[in-house]
């Protein structure tokens, strides 16, 4: 399931048949070798071309999954071979509400992983139970050593279960364009192990009806040990390896140039993309299309009054003409920068004035209400106060500040992000939590990260990863990829972190001595 998607499906399918295991192992070796090279930091990109025939003549088992599996779509991150995804109905319906259509293919991966892990966990128990069920009388009795093995088996299974739950049982957070290399490797590995153990079991234990029960129990225990080690491998590959920072990613938003630098470890391009997007939603200020362009009045005066006439009849020298025009325009004195400067200054002033009005209005509004404490309830009956809940209190004080707020939002072009309802809700929230007017205004005075506006952008999380390299290849120096949405894109550049040579210098604490300096001392 590693390389370009359609083949991966077939490779998985062919793993069912025993005789093609050699094929599969060879391919796995290829795959793991190529991954080793990328993890060693090779500069070459491994593009896995399917050199061998992937569909054997023997593997003709018609799988139902075939039709869906072979397409270039989705596998879920955040889970691994021991995971069971939350296929909640509620989440499914929530997905339906978004405009991105629900893809059933999204859950094939985790479902597969879940089945595999269940199969792997049940296998040792099956190994133990089957002889008891089938030929109990013929078994040799096995006393204390077996009981010891039972106990250790039980605890190891428990540890396996708990750590699988802790590490891998998470709702998926992203769907990647290609399959997640390490996870596929691990699933294949688990399947290999379990299948080969079953094979051996079937040939050596079930057929001849082996009587040495202790041997069987030890066999099951060795399988559980192997599973624990595979889980260790999974932990290292999926969780630990990318923790140590190795690359610095520069993320630039294409429309307004907002940029950030992040340190990441060794990841593939698609995983790095998911990582960057996670950070994007909480670090970058929200994209405001209204704030982008220079006002038309400044730019429109560009190409006035320079027409080129060709006197020689048919000489089609268009490039020469345009070049002449550009040269002339460059030579002409251009005062648009002046206008831009004054326009910006004017804009700043306007924003500051509106902001001052808004702050004053909000401060005044907040003085109109105060929190009612319990002991004041039974106060003087002569002045009955109307007791309000936060919603009503918010509505009561919203009126005087509404106009100032609206004008401010309009000046800073934020009116698309805040509706009346949202402002009221926020006001209610602030009143409930005893926030000051300044805390209430924090949300409007500076554009927050995109996460803050998520409810408004209900449709939003469809991103396209644009890259010249295959997206499962590892990050390396000089790689550039971009994440595109409908109206803007994030361009990511990869540079490796510099190698640090740390030296040492010891300073004796007694060596700090000082003398008075003459006022000036010149050396001649």
């Amino acid at each position: 399931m590693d390389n370009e998607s359609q083949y991966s499906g077939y490779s998985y399918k062919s793993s069912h048949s025993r005789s093609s295991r050699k094929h599969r192992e060879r391919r796995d070796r290829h795959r793991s070798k190529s991954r080793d090279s990328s993890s060693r930091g090779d500069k070459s990109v491994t593009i896995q071309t399917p050199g061998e025939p992937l569909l054997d003549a023997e593997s003709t088992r018609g799988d139902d999954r075939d039709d869906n599996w072979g397409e270039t779509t989705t596998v879920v991150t955040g889970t691994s071979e021991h995971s069971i995804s939350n296929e909640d109905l509620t989440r499914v319906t929530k997905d339906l509400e978004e405009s991105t259509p629900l893809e059933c293919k999204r859950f094939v991966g985790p479902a597969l992983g879940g089945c595999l892990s269940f199969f792997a966990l049940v296998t040792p128990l099956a190994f133990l139970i089957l002889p008891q069920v089938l030929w109990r009388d013929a078994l040799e009795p096995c006393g204390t050593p077996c009981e010891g093995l039972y106990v250790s088996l039980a605890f190891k299974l428990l540890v396996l279960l708990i750590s699988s739950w802790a590490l891998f049982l998470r709702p998926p957070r992203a769907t990647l364009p290609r399959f997640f290399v390490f996870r596929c490797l691990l699933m294949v590995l688990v399947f290999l192990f379990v299948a080969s153990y079953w094979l051996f079991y079937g040939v050596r234990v079930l057929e001849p009806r082996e009587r040495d029960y202790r041997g069987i129990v030890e066999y099951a225990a060795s399988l559980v040990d192997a599973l624990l080690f595979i889980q260790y491998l999974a932990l290292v590959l999926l969780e630990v390896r990318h923790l140590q920072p190795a690359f610095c990613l520069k993320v630039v938003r294409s429309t307004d140039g907002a940029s950030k630098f992040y340190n990441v470890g060794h990841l593939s391009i698609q995983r790095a993309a998911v990582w960057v997007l996670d950070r994007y939603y909480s670090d970058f200020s929200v994209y405001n299309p209204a704030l982008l362009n220079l006002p038309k009045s400044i730019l429109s005066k560009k190409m006035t009054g320079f027409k080129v006439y060709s006197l020689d009849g048919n000489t089609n020298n268009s490039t020469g003409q345009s070049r002449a025009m550009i040269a002339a325009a460059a030579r002409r004195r251009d005062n648009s920068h002046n206008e831009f400067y004054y326009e910006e200054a004017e804009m700043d002033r306007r924003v500051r004035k509106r902001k001052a009005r808004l702050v004053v209005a909000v401060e005044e509004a907040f003085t109109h209400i105060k929190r009612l404490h319990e002991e004041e309830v039974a106060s003087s009956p002569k002045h009955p106060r109307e007791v309000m809940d936060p919603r009503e209190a918010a509505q009561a004080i919203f009126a005087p500040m509404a106009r100032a707020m609206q004008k401010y939002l309009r000046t800073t072009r934020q009116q698309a992000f805040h509706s009346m309802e949202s402002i009221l809700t926020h006001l209610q929230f602030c009143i409930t939590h005893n926030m000051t007017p300044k805390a209430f205004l924090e949300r409007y005075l500076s554009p927050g990260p995109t996460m803050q506006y998520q409810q408004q952008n209900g449709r939003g999380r469809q991103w396209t990863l644009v890259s010249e390299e295959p997206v499962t290849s590892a990050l390396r120096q000089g790689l550039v990829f971009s994440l595109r949405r409908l109206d803007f894109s994030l361009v990511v550049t990869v540079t490796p972190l510099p190698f640090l040579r740390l030296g040492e210098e010891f300073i004796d604490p007694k060596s700090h001595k000082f003398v008075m300096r003459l006022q000036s001392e010149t050396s001649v």
Partner: protein
Amino acid sequence: MSFVPGMPVSVVVERIEIKKLCQGDNLILGFSIGGGIDQDPGQNPFSEDKSDKGIYVTRITPGGPAQDAGLRMGDKIMQVNGWDMTVVTHDQARKRLTKKNECVVRLLVTRKSLEQAVKHSMGSCQRP
């Protein structure tokens, strides 16, 4: 070496001749000076009289021409190539020492030990 304004100063001086060393583009002498009439005399660690605004040698580069010629730290420079250094600003003193067209500076310097040496020798001379 106390300095009474208006009265002539009489001290015992030593004549020191330093050849400038060529180091790249500069001619260096290998010592640092401090003091001057525009500086604060109270901060001078080498002067006996803390109102003495003369030019003192504050540091000698080891192995430099000044050390070879016999200049010591704490010497007060009285004359440089005939120019007086007792009533000059710091910058004037620097300029007189670092003239580019002179290869050799002849200093008249004084230090406390000179007076004592003279007194000692005069004292020993006077004993019958």
